[in-house]
């Protein structure tokens, strides 16, 4: 509603200007003769005042709309690096907003102040090397400072993941995400191969790799709070992009080229719910690379658990092989014994659909 009021005021602003311009035109004949040597007409002053008015209303609208929108901005970052980048964002943003405000103010004010007058002549002022040097050096220095701090942060974010990081595989497909955990025994993801994908093994887990045996899949992403997490990212069909807005994480998923991103979640889902006062708040994983019809709906829920709860949740998960014992047939003879450990004693029904991954739309 507030915005509609803002909109109406803009409409009236435009109307007011057009009415004034029109009336000036009607009055043209009454006003004194225009300077024949100049293209300036009787509307010149109105346009000059328009610049001032634009500055004034623009500033008011800018400040007001920022404050009105701020409650909907992303809340405090829920990851360690996110806190750093958020701080840097707001510092950079204040620097550029200041530059934006000063330069636009000068531009609009000069436009008003130096509007045409037939009694005045413009100042012939073609060059001033000192001035030019100053405003080349100042942006260069400011830029250098911003870029240097940005580079250090970028270097830290993209550094090698700690060796104890929890490894989770995210695979994008039209239109959803598959999640695979490295398992409770070895924290090592098994190989995968896109040619092994079938209706049940929809990630293409390679069971000739013994690291695959304890891997389990999930329809939602669980992360331990305070522990580094390494996302290994794949795509099956077209480009996708893993986007965890609250964790300030984004990395494209590319078919044929594994990508990765590691970060440390710092706020659990429960803590965030308490912080925001929203009982049903949930972190999300969205897609930010256009991938087709269902692009906008390609999301799964992310839970950040206390480390103990995370351990408990992991322990409850059954390895893929345990829920789909038929895949034991794909395990090579020499590893059969190792794999068989994960097969439950009593046979479970083959048509289990427990691992059917979430698919939005």
């Amino acid at each position, binding site marked *: 509603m*507030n915005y509609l009021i803002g*909109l109406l005021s*803009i409409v009236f602003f435009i109307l007011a*200007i057009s009415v004034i*311009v029109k009336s000036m035109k009607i009055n043209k004949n009454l006003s004194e003769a225009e300077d024949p*040597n100049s293209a*300036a007409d009787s509307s*010149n002053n109105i346009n000059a005042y328009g610049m001032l008015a634009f500055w004034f209303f623009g500033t008011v609208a800018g400040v007001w*709309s920022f404050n009105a*929108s701020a409650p909907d901005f*992303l809340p405090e970052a829920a990851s360690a690096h996110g806190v750093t*980048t958020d701080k*840097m*964002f707001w510092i*950079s943003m204040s620097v*550029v907003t200041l530059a*934006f405000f000063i330069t636009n103010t000068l*531009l*609009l004010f*000069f436009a008003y102040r*130096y*509007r045409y*007058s037939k009694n005045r002549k*413009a*100042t*012939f*002022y*073609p*060059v001033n090397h000192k001035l*030019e040097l100053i405003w080349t050096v100042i*942006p260069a220095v400011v830029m250098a400072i*911003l870029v240097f701090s*940005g*580079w250090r942060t970028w*270097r830290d974010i*993209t550094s090698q993941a700690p060796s104890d990081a929890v490894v989770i595989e995210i695979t994008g497909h039209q239109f959803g995400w598959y999640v695979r955990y490295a398992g409770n025994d070895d924290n090592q993801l098994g190989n995968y191969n896109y040619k092994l*994908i079938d209706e049940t093994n929809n990630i293409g887990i390679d069971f000739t790799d013994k690291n695959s045996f304890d891997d389990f899949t999930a329809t939602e992403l669980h992360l331990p709070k305070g522990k580094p997490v390494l996302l290994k990212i794949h795509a099956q*069909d077209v*480009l996708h992009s893993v986007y965890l*807005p609250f964790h300030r994480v*984004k*990395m494209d998923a*590319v*078919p*044929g*080229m*594994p*990508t990765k991103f590691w970060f440390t979640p710092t706020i659990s889902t429960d803590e965030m719910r308490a912080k925001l006062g*929203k009982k*049903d708040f*949930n972190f*999300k994983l969205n*897609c930010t*690379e*256009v991938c*087709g019809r269902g*692009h*906008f*709906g390609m*999301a799964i829920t992310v839970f950040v658990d206390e480390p103990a709860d995370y351990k408990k949740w992991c322990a409850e998960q059954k390895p893929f092989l345990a829920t789909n014992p038929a895949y034991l047939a794909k395990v090579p003879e020499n590893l059969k014994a190792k794999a068989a450990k994960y097969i439950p004693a009593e046979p479970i029904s083959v048509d289990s659909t427990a691992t059917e991954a979430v698919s939005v739309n």
Partner: protein
Amino acid sequence: MSTAISHAEEVHTHAHDHEHEHHEPNFIQKYIFSEDHKTIAKQYLIMGILWAFVGGSLSIMFRLQLGFPDMQLEWLRPILGSWIDESGKIDKEFYLALVTMHGTIMVFFVLTAGLSGTFSNFLIPLQIGARDMASGFINMLSFWFFFLSSAIMFSSLFIETGPASGGWVIYPPLSALPQAMPGSGLGMTLWLTSMAFFIVSSLMGGINYICTIINLRTRGMTFTKMPLTIWSFFFTAILGLLSFPVLLSAALLLIFDRSFGTSFYLSEIYIQGQALPNVGGSAILYQHLFWFLGHPEVYIVLLPALGMTSEIIATNARKPIFGYRAMIGSLMGITVLAFIVWAHHMFVTGMNPFLGSVFMFLTLIIAVPSAVKAFNYITTLWKGNLIFTPAMLFSIGLVSLFISGGVTGIILGNSALDINLHDTYFVVAHFHLVMGSASFFGLMAGVYHWFPKMFGRMMNSTLGYIHFWATFVGVYAVFFPMHYTGIAGFPRRYYSFTALGNDGQNAFTDLNQFITVAAILTFSSQAIFFFNFVYSIFKGKKATENPWNSNTLEWTTPVNPGHGNWPGEIPAVYRWPYDYSKPGAESDFIPQHIPFSATPESNLPEENEEIAKEKAIESLLAAQNESYNR
């Protein structure tokens, strides 16, 4: 003023003895397959304006979906047919097609062809003092390849599977696999075909611009006496000539992948229950090739606008452009740097992070020449005597938008900050202000300023003022709030925001409505321009030779310059184009063709030395005439 006129008359008296050989062209030669740069420029302009309305109306359709997701759009069915789904809303795939075609049309067909094509063609021969382009025939071919390309692109809007829909960047594999989305079928084939012709057209144009500027300058027109418009067209043409071929190769490899089973961009793909045999390709390779054009393209769009603005601001501030050489230097700096910043579009594609660091440094360097340009524009206004013609208003608007959109580039160029902002509305806000709106304002400024020379009549200035204010307020109202949704993490190219969760879709309901309504109003107000443009061509007030009291050579031509531009000799050039309000001078402008010997009262000490060179410049006349008769 008086000296200018007397000299012009002098030129006229000994005119006509050198008759430029020409026969009266018939209608087709004159208006359709014309080799005259002025006609070709008008052809480009009219195509550009028509495309702008197409591209704009597409954006209004997707803005309706974003602003009013529950709105019944059944009334659009007569136009869109089955692209309106059963529930009376825009089809989800067609939404992506709208976004894609809006981007393609605006970037290439409006702001590249419509802007550069129009004004490079129109102004280069007129401002450097040439009778026409180096090759009128290639120039004509350039337009007709553009026309062919336009026809193909336009036809793709009407096919059953819809036009290309994978975003204007058409990243494979989405664009390579027809099974991934319907728009990647025939629509994409047409897109690629159209763009191939477009690139041919733009290369032909670019070669011509460069050759003409280097070879056909009139006597005395040294590089340091060229107007900044010409400098900007020169660098724009170089940018296009070096980068468009890379897009062509990217497109060709994509065509091979699509049609001949190659694997340049495809690897390990499982789609629709089928594992494709392609291995070893790299989807990232395409992105590198695309952005090697894609980033210079931003400057291909922007530099002509900046060049024209320099000219218009100097003329209407009645003041020399501040820091002429710094302006050339920053144009040159931007041109060089434009080639080595492309990967800042790819920080989060999985590219090596070290490469990301390198491109971050290079990207932030390009902000320095851009800042210098902004400061120089502002200083040009300082202590000027500002005449707010519609062209001047649009130029001031351009500077404002260039700054407002430019500053957020410093945020996005920082790879650490780009992680969260990449592909959000923050990016949309950034490039629509700095590249889209700023260049559009340059286009409008150019049309208002050079309309008298194009059509021999004046546009109505009151309608121009209303058009400016509506558009200026409008584009800020549309694009400024998008920063907010970007900071809130809203991704671009989203049909709706329901999957953000936590009532994310309700966060900016009223803001999105506001943007949509503002977009509709801004778009509608372009009708004022369209009416003014068409009406003034036929019924506008008759123009004079030099309505803005400007210094450059095009204003020494007759009101309706004929074939060959100057009925008599081409004037010689003795001074730079920015002698406005020179101390001591009687008139507040001294055109470029006035020798220093005619203005002893206003010459600076070093300019008095130039008088000695005037004889040498004049003696080049015979050689210049001979070069046209060869």
